């Protein structure tokens, strides 16, 4: 293996370690926050202050891990990866910018029900993910 290939392998390892650590942290934080939200849904106002604090800590940890992880990710990847992410984000944003007003207008003329924020969020995320994967497939 040449000098460049060794550097490349080291770089890939670092990339996957960062991504793996973030996924693990996200899973732990997501579990605790999701568990507490599920408990709150089931028990209503009976959730103890301690459990609420645990849920809030989980959500804060999730937000902090996402912010820190994004910074770490974008400072360790190359310009093609950044370009792929920017394109995916732009296309995801367009999905949102088109879907929400179209749905809202259709709801105003009573053709369909009111916009559902989770459906719109999901469509935007899925569109961005599809755009990202398409670009990755193109430069595989």
């Amino acid at each position: 293996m040449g000098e460049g290939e060794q550097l490349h392998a080291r770089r890939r390892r670092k990339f996957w370690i960062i991504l793996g650590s973030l996924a693990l942290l996200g899973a732990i934080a997501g579990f605790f926050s999701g568990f507490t939200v599920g408990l709150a849904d089931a028990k209503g106002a009976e959730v103890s202050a301690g459990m609420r604090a645990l849920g809030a800590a989980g959500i804060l940890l999730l937000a902090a891990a996402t912010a820190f992880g994004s910074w770490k990710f974008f400072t360790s990847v190359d310009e093609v990866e950044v370009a792929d992410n920017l394109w995916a984000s732009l296309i995801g944003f367009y999905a949102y910018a088109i879907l929400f007003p179209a749905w809202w207008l259709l709801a105003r003329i009573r053709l369909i029900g009111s916009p559902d924020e989770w459906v719109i969020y999901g469509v935007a995320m899925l569109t961005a993910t599809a755009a990202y994967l398409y670009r990755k497939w193109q430069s595989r």
Partner: protein
Amino acid sequence: MTWEQWLENRLRVLRAERGWSQAELGGRLGVSRQAVNAIETGKHDPSLPLAFRIARLFELPIEDIFSEGNSNG
């Protein structure tokens, strides 16, 4: 010519002359193998700093590696 892609390059030829794989070149440039492939196939025009790194690595002027494309769009 469109804004999207208008550079042609000799990266694949230069790499082959040295017997380097895409991963080898990527490692030497500090980018991924996929990035090298995207540049070689014209799917990504490199930034100026990366173009300078490529030129330095091959010890050639930038214009000997990259040239304007021929499209008339």
